[in-house]
């Protein structure tokens, strides 16, 4: 997964629901189509929430990994 090159990294460590998806949405709004966001969170609920978020918004979750206590998501802006 680390071979993915992120255009922007957003660290949501320490934030609880609903802030990770709100900050993800705001970050994606400022990005161009095709760019990749690396989002880091510590809220375990974000694993399910990011999957639901991409399903609803139509963005693409390229992959996710766990680094110790942190969850890392790579999301491509498709629209």
């Amino acid at each position, binding site marked *: 997964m680390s071979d993915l090159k992120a255009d922007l990294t957003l660290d949501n460590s320490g934030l609880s629901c609903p802030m990770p998806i*709100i900050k993800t949405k705001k970050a994606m709004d400022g990005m161009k189509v095709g760019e990749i966001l690396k989002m880091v969170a510590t809220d375990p609920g974000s694993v399910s929430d990011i999957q639901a978020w991409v399903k609803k918004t139509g963005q693409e979750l390229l992959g996710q990994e766990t680094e110790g206590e942190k969850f890392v998501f790579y999301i491509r802006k498709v629209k």
Partner: protein
Amino acid sequence: MPEESAKRLAIISTHGTLDMAYPPFILSTAAVAMDMEAAIFFTFYGLEILKKGKIDRLKVSPVANPAMPMKIPNIIAMLPGMTPLATSMMNSWMRKAKVPKLSELLATAQEMGVRLIGCQMTMDVMGIKKEDLIDGIEIGGAATFLEFASQNAVTLSF
């Protein structure tokens, strides 16, 4: 996105208590983050949440609240000082879990464009004036809420 997927979240808030004020703000801000529109209709005691300077001073009562982690018989829970105690305990759990304060969620909701509608009828019944409420909200009645909720919406009440 499937064609039948709801585009709106329409919430009715009727309780001006700390515990019941959180879900409408968490869900409405999340909805906007998911490309939905969201509105909260504040009616009856829910209007308390929109009063100036009130949102971070809402309370939760331990009376008739058996789900609270603090197990207190109702006859003790009704004593003076128990509601402030339960409130400060809940606020400290929220801080520990890094949940934003209600005023922060309110600011986020307003910034993201969540429609906040104060119930005109409740204002009349309770003698609440528009200037008693925070800026940037709408005042309306049942039809204002229902018109929004009638189009492809998820509807919830707290």
